[in-house]
């Protein structure tokens, strides 16, 4: 693994240059909040953003995505037969994504890309994306990522990890995919070497590793909220499911979709047909376990009829079922969005600790 130092003065030119071979996605302020979206020509990712209101999962798992188109006109050729919707899976780079938001993609990948089935929309979109991540030097107070097997400097799910350091970005090159983007941005020489030939870029010296470690330790030490889930693993599903605290925990919950929609790891979705005249589409839309519609049978019977049962489902899924099914920690990266945005103060940190420590 190599680290290079990119002078901020040449940063935006490089980003713009990489456009020749990449579509670019980054955080931009949209009205009040930052959102990840495709950057128009000349538009730069806002590298000073704090957090995006919605997670960047929409890059590969959009809120609404057309899978198929069809024609219901019997005179049309191939009528009533699903045709693939047009897609663009040319290379693209997402710049400035938080390390643990990138980590969330690994979690989603467990669901959408497994040995039995592969969701082609997810797989193709994920594969064509290069993750140029930005370490978080100053985590906000909702951040509990270090408890979730990731953190503000986690480099395990990214192609390049940028660290904001004075007048430069220190770039940890984690994969060949990452190197390819740096090449395209002109941050290396043509053959991918860093030999001082590129103005503003230098190979980092030995001390740079220590500097990054220091920045990382600083950032992590700022994170004060912690969760534990070790004991959740040991308890049986039914014990936690039948625990007495759920109705109390869920009392305030409005069963809106705020947490599930802002969450980088909530993957549930719906499939819907929509028609306009004789033309139709079949789309994949985000769905939320908070709504009764999610599970109601056609007969009207609903296995999760009560509001509090739906709240329980969300936390059981993220903190217990996921652990048991995949043995890869919890389905949460500790980004804190749900805590910050919940209108009713449903706080996953408390609930997790209660599931872990409660009777």
């Amino acid at each position, binding site marked *: 693994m190599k680290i290079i130092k990119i002078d901020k003065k040449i940063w935006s030119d490089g980003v713009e240059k990489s456009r020749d071979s990449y579509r670019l996605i980054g955080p931009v302020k*949209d*009205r*009040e*909040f930052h*959102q990840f979206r495709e950057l128009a020509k000349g538009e730069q990712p806002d590298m000073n953003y*704090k957090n995006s*209101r*919605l997670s960047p999962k929409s890059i590969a798992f959009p*809120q*609404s995505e057309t899978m198929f188109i069809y024609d219901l006109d019997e005179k049309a050729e191939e009528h009533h037969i699903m045709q693939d919707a047009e897609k663009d899976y040319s290379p693209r780079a997402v710049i400035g994504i938080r390390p643990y938001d990138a980590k969330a993609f690994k979690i989603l990948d467990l669901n959408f890309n497994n040995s039995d089935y592969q969701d082609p929309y997810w797989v193709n979109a994920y594969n064509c994306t290069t993750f140029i991540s930005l370490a978080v030097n*100053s*985590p*906000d*107070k*909702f*951040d509990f990522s270090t408890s979730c097997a990731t953190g503000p400097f986690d480099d395990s799910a990214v192609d390049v990890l940028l660290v904001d350091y004075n007048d430069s970005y220190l770039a940890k090159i984690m994969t060949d995919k990452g190197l390819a983007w740096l090449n395209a941005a002109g941050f290396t020489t043509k053959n991918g070497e860093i030999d001082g030939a590129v103005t503003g870029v230098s190979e980092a010296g030995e001390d740079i590793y220590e500097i990054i470690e220091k920045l990382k330790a600083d950032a992590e*030490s*700022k*994170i*004060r909220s912690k969760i534990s889930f070790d004991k959740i693993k040991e308890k049986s599903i039914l014990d936690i499911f039948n625990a007495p605290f759920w109705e*109390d925990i869920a*009392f*305030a919950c*409005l*069963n*809106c*979709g*705020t947490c*599930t*929609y*802002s969450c980088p790891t909530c993957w549930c979705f*719906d499939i*819907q047909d*929509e028609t306009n005249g004789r033309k139709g589409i079949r*789309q994949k*839309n*985000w769905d*939320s376990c908070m*709504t*009764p*519609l999610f599970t109601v049978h056609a007969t009207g019977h609903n296995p999760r009829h009560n509001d509090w049962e739906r709240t329980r489902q969300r936390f059981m899924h993220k903190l217990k079922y996921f652990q048991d099914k995949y043995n890869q920690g919890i389905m949460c990266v500790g980004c804190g969005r749900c*805590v*910050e*945005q919940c*209108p*009713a*103060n*449903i*706080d996953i*940190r*408390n609930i997790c600790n209660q599931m872990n420590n409660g009777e």
Partner: protein
Amino acid sequence: MTMNINQSDINKKQIDIINQQYTEKIRESAKKVLLEKKVDVVIGFKNGTEPMTTEPCLINKASDADKLIWNEHCRLNLANYVKGRKDKAAVVAKGCDSRNLVNHIIEHQIKRENLYIIGVPCNGMVDKSLNLKELKVEAESDTMQENLDLFPINRDMLQDNCKTCIKRNPVIFDEMIAEPVKEREWTKEEKLKESFESVNKIEAMAESDRWSFFNDMLSSCTRCYACRNACPLCYCPTCFVDESRPQWVGKGTDLIDVRTYHFLRAFHCAGRCTDCGACEAACPMNIKVRLFTKKLDKECFENFGWEAGMSLDERPPLDVYKVNDNANFIR
């Protein structure tokens, strides 16, 4: 002691004294009604997990009553947590909550005799996006709480609906936890001008500007339905957006469907909305969804002199026909 924070700035220390008094009285009342078995449960607010946050809570034994609190962040409308309850519930209610309780009673969602209303004279709620700004203070900052202690509260810091509140004291109650706060005396003209200022601005726009204004405003809506779910009025067993037979509204992100949802919901709240602001308090994207309901509030006020939830004895205008009803909208 009463304070009118709409008229003079008071600092956080002063408001804390009021909050402390209110909190103690609420706890006292809650204990009393539970011990006397006047109610099965008390619905109020407890402290949230972060400074400046609160959480609606259900207390069913007197020993838990000390969880209850009151402060200027009790934004949600607790009438929303009463609908459909079969037991006897005490509810901590500020002016707007009580108006929604009136609605619930009129609309047969709850029986008056099953309610025990602990009335709270309200000094207004602080706008939550203001909090968010404050909360952006980095996690390591210990000075945040100190800053908050000196944090002055003035009219500018209140959420929009509180700035034009017409009823800060509860309309109906079984007991009041403090002397009523002073209500503003509004003339009809003042109301039309000031209270509906936001609506008037939009009405004054050219049609195309208005259209793009709404489109822009709704562009960030994710249809999480927090506004609907926080609203005490929204108790339909199946909301029209969730109906599949027939499917009135598409489920994707098409702006047509987003608009349809917001417009129709507002119409369904006509003559019922108390402008409590819970919808805006709940919206994670800070969309000013009250603009829609407020327009219908204005229509009701202008045409029928109606303000929702002010009396148990009067039917809402869309419920009754009167010969002298303003009919100029029928063409």
